[in-house]
């Protein structure tokens, strides 16, 4: 044999041993999968969270994703205290330094110095409102990058004109640029002069000469938005009311750095304002650093930021210490991000919970695989032990083998994880740590399992326990009881404290512990009904039922580990599905609550929904039912109460409906139980007759009289039936009044709400109809509200991760099932061989073989059902899912049909695999197999 051939044989020997390549591939695949999950899960979590953060940050105005410092100081009469452009720029760096290590976008930074506004003395007549326009002179750094020169030139000169003969003071002629809007509004053009008096007597007058017209290059940036006057003249509010001032145009002109010092000097004695703007780098922010960013910004705003900026200001500007009157550092970022952050916090707690449990399930799969390997290696390792190998040597041998398989598998898993998931900004050390641990587990656990199985010379005791030295073992019972107690305590703690409120590992493991406890209970309980069935089967003809049940009843869950893994992974899948479906249902319900119908149009105040709008909406394609109703909230300005006969008046909401059309519409909504019949007009409708109404439970007795008061007007009514929340009023206590009786209450106007149900209703068409028939009408679309709830960054990311976790859990379930079946494959084959030798038919043999997997499947289904129900009942209310739906109360997590699908799928798959296996067994040489299986 060639040298290369020898090496290859040696390598193959190390990797496969006597068990063959199938197990080697399995070990490598499990190592790959576990490392893939361990590395990918934190990376995907980070990526999804960061993506959600980016989506949340994207629509925020730049002004809110920034830190701004503002200072005001007084320039003395002698001109000291003037801030030069370099000084202003220097302070920009000081502020940015304070904001760091929060990432700052240097390209967007600017400094601004601006003066008090002064009236223009020579305005064009068109620019004068009640008062003449005012002008502030603004210096803003980086003008060239934010503005485009339309005509003329950028400012760059300042001249001090000598006082005119007879004048006491000179004139400061300042070049400046204005925007086209300012130029148009004030009637300015290149070369125009805007003349202003001095701020205080004894100073130069300031004349601004327009040298150029500049158009904003990026009008949506804070450069133009911070002070809107710079971009276009505004009329300061208020212009009406008690505090009203005569309207005038307030405008600004931009000067260059050369003019800045003289302008300040010219405004000597007045307050000069400075502003420093530091935008935060959104792209550099991530979920991991967000809490630190917020904490640091809070420190900058409330602590060091102001003083740090204040300190160098006097030195830079020459303003004596203490002359700076106001200095504030502010940011709108924490407020802008707070809603998202609350959602993300709740989502992250659940995401971490699911991912931690999926990792635990993956670990159990590794342990199950190790058990499978120990079982397959048993003949080889038994021989080695018999030949003088120690348990440590056996473990070392398996370690060498599993390491040879796990390391390439782990590398492949990590590579796939890196390829599938985006790189986290911080390099995700947690992912690599978990990946390393998973690789160590994949290599080490098979070795530990083999060492443990062969700690004695007779692996597994070979069933020949010495009768004299044998002692009954309470180990399993004690271990099971301990696990049950821990699981119970963890669930109780989780229920009391809430999941995700803390970061303790135990609460994260609650679902796994609950599933493990349920699996143990199911393993203990399942033989009881089987034995009952066995008694029934004993009296029936045919061997299959009896044989199958007898095996199922007597089979020990030798493969308890696969059953445990199966229950845990299935429970995680079911739990994930339950959470997602509960959130989805809850979001749908929230959308119904907010909209009331598929489309709702609220009439403007004191407006009635016109009949033509009702007809127009009803005619839209997809609209099934339309109802125009009047709704008056119970706690609105117009008081409405219902006083049952002899009872006390209680505030109620009032809904007036046309019973027939509303009942038809209500059937399309989640509140379908609207009883139209009791509201029908019956007999006399004279003024004194009591009007039948539907009232919320607790409002008077059904059939009893009551008095409805709306805005002081009273109407005798009779409670003809009950109503719960309904499309027109989705919350609170209410009274539904028939439309035919509405005229008897003069305080009730016509319908103010139009409700429509149907599918595929064109919102633009409805909008057009509303614009045409009822301008100002407010349209609520259930689909849009739902899309808003589901599309919110944090819930969307959470749903994405839940589905992913559920998918991984389902995959782990399949693997656990296959391992469980692999562990019992030999005994199943022996059973079929024996039955075939006894002359049983192939179909019957197959049916009995299926009984081999019944314990595993029964425990899986029972355990999953128990664990799922327990988790939903105990842990469900502790989960903070309300943030995803905007619901006031907790979101109910309940069992759903979809949650049972993974377990059902596993049962079908298990039976299919066994059936196929049985067919293969039936085709082999029974005599040879029986000889091979005979004990040696």
């Amino acid at each position, binding site marked *: 044999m060639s040298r290369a051939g020898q090496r290859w044989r040696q390598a*193959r020997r190390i990797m496969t041993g006597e068990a063959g390549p199938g197990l080697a591939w399995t070990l490598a695949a499990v190592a790959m999968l576990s490392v893939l999950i361990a590395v990918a899960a934190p990376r995907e979590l980070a990526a999804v969270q960061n993506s959600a953060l980016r989506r949340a940050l994207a629509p925020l105005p730049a002004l809110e994703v920034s830190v701004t410092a503002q200072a005001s100081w007084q320039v003395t009469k002698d001109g000291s205290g003037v801030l030069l452009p370099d000084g202003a720029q220097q302070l920009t760096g000081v502020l940015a330094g304070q904001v760091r290590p929060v990432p700052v976008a240097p390209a967007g930074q600017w400094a601004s110095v601006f003066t008090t506004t002064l009236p223009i003395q020579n305005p064009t007549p068109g620019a004068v409102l009640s008062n003449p326009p005012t002008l502030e002179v603004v210096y803003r750094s980086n003008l060239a990058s934010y503005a485009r020169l339309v005509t003329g030139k950028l400012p760059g000169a300042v001249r001090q004109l000598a006082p005119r003969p007879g004048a006491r003071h000179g004139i400061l002629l300042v070049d400046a640029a204005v925007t086209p809007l300012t130029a148009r509004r004030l009637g300015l053009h290149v070369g125009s002069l805007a003349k202003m008096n001095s701020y205080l007597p004894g100073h130069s007058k300031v004349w601004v000469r327009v040298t150029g017209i500049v158009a904003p290059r990026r009008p949506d940036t804070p450069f133009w938005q911070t002070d809107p006057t710079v971009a276009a003249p505004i009329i300061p509010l208020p212009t009406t009311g008690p505090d009203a001032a005569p309207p005038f145009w307030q405008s600004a002109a931009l000067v260059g750095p050369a003019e800045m010092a003289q302008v300040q000097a010219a405004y000597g004695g007045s307050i000069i304002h400075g502003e420093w703007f530091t935008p935060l780098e959104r792209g550099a922010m991530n979920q991991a650093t967000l809490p630190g960013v917020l904490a640091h910004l809070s420190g900058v705003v409330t602590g060091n930021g102001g003083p740090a900026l204040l300190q160098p200001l006097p030195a830079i500007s020459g303003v004596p210490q203490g002359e700076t009157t106001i200095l504030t550092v502010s940011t709108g970022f924490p407020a802008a991000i707070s809603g998202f952050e609350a959602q993300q916090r709740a989502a992250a707690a659940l995401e971490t919970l699911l991912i931690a449990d999926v990792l635990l399930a993956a670990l159990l799969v590794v342990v199950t695989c190790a058990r499978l390997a120990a079982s397959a290696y048993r003949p*080889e390792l038994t*021989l*080695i032990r018999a030949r003088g*190998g120690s348990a440590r*040597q056996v473990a070392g041998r398996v370690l060498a083998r599993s390491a040879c398989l796990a390391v390439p598998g782990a590398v492949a898993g990590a590579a796939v994880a890196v390829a599938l998931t985006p790189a986290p900004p911080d390099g995700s050390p947690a992912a690599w740590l978990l990946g390393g641990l998973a690789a160590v587990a994949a290599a080490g656990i098979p070795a530990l399992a083999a060492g443990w199985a062969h700690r004695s010379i007779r692996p597994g005791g070979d069933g*020949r326990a*010495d*009768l*004299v030295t044998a002692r009954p073992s309470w180990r399993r019972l004690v271990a099971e009881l301990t696990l049950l107690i821990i699981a119970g305590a963890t669930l109780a703690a989780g229920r009391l404290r809430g999941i995700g409120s803390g970061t303790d590992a135990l609460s994260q493991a609650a679902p796994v512990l609950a599933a493990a406890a349920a699996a143990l209970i199911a393993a203990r309980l399942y033989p009881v009904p089987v034995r009952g069935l066995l008694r029934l089967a004993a009296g029936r003809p045919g061997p299959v039922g009896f044989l199958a049940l007898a095996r199922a009843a007597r089979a020990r869950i030798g493969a308890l580990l696969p059953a445990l893994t199966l229950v845990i992974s299935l429970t995680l899948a079911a739990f994930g599905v339950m959470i997602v479906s509960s959130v989805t249902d809850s979001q749908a319900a929230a959308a119904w609550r907010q909209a009331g119908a598929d489309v709702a149009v609220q009439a403007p105040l004191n407006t009635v929904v016109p009949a033509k709008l009702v007809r127009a909406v009803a005619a839209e394609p997809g609209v099934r039912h339309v109802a125009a109703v009047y709704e008056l909230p119970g706690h609105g300005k117009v008081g409405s109460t219902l006083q049952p006969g002899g009872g006390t008046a209680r505030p109620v909401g009032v809904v007036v409906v046309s019973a027939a059309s509303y009942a038809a519409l209500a059937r399309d909504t989640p509140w379908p139980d609207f009883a139209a019949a009791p509201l029908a007009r019956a007999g006399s409708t004279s003024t004194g007759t009591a009007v039948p109404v539907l009232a919320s439970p607790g409002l008077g007795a059904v059939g009893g009289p009551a008095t409805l008061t709306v805005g002081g007007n009273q109407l005798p009514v009779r409670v003809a039936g009950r109503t719960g929340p309904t499309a027109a009023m989705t919350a609170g206590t209410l009274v539904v009044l028939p439309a035919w009786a509405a005229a008897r209450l003069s305080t009730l106007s016509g319908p103010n709400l139009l409700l429509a149900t149907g599918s595929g209703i064109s919102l633009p068409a409805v909008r057009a109809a509303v614009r045409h028939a009822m301008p100002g009408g407010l349209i609520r679309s259930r689909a849009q509200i739902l899309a808003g709830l589901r599309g919110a960054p944090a819930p969307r990311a959470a749903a994405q991760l839940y589905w992913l976790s559920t998918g991984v859990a389902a995959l782990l379930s399949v693997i656990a099932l296959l391992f469980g079946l692999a562990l019992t494959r030999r005994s199943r084959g022996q059973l079929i061989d024996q039955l075939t030798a006894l002359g049983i038919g192939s179909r019957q043999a197959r049916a009995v073989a299926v009984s081999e997997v019944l314990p595993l499947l029964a425990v899986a289904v029972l355990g999953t059902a128990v664990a799922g129900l327990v988790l939903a009942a105990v842990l469900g209310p502790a989960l903070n899912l309300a943030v995803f739906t905007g619901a006031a109360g907790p979101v109910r997590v309940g069992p759903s049909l979809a949650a049972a699908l993974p377990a059902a799928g596993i049962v079908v798959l298990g039976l299919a695999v066994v059936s196929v296996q049985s067919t293969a067994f039936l085709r082999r040489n029974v005599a040879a197999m029986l000889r091979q299986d005979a004990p040696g």
Partner: protein
Amino acid sequence: MAALDDLIAASRKAAPGDQQRRTAPPPGTVIFCDRLVRIFSVSGVETQALQGLDLEVTAGELTALVGASGSGKSTLLNILAALDQPTGGQAVVAGHDLLALGAAERLAYRRATVGFIWQQTSRNLLSHYTAAENIALPMKLAGASRADRRRRPAELLELLDLGDCAGRLTGELSGGQQQRVAVGVALANQPTVLLADEPTGELDSDTAAGVFAALRTANAELGVTVLIVTHDDMVSEHVRRTIAIRDGRISTEVLRRTQTDEHGQEAEVAQEYSVLDRAGRLQLPGEFVSTLGLRDRVRLALEPDHVGVWPDQPDPAVPGPLGSGPGAGTPVAPGPAQRHSEPGSGAPGGQSR
């Protein structure tokens, strides 16, 4: 159950720690078993595999152990190989008290003192190893040097006439070659005792002869004491000592020796002996029991040089052939030397006391 309790109590008397009651193996004895008991339960069914077995094998012996299936042969062999632990009694192999060994000592014992061959070749050899590598494996486990691991397999393979098979994988060897390699594996660490559990059970007679020859070679040339469990007449008839085990005890022994008659002709003579255990119990061969219709109890008579055994029948005309001395066939009047013996209720085959 009472019998079991008695058995356990008897074996406990010789349990480890009760040194005063322990019997020292006679000089030259390599395998020494005294009242060896092994009782275990399989799926709740109690099995008394060894019921107070006594055995002595001297150094350098080649001994066959025969008996019906389930008689306890393999259990005995596993105990001697330190692959199983007895419930009670005494088992000493090459000076190692197997009931007193700790885990590390048992490991060292398995490495250095015994070699073992199973019936199934698949249990003896690793299929992905060559013949030489299989032999080197126990040496590696025992910490032998690399040079020894290269030298010793080659020597053993030459000795076993397998020199050309050193580089072949197990699957490339015939069944007989595999079992001979297994002999080599068992001899790798130069053990004192070689234990073989039906080594020829899966082989045809020609091939079995080759394997048996290998065992004889090991015995003759390396001086290893060999104990073979076998059903193979060819094996049992070609060893000097064949021990029959029945119901967990040694029942009979056949000793073969070469005798030279008055004409100088050499002939193999086999003589069957019944074995008397240390408690004085004797198992009568089954055919003796059935021929004379012995049941329930027998009459014993002590003669000057033998013991007479008669069926418990009132008719004295039926002589008891078991007594082979001068008094055989002659009824003996009840006296101080006479006893009535009742076979053990659970032991078929006329166990006498």
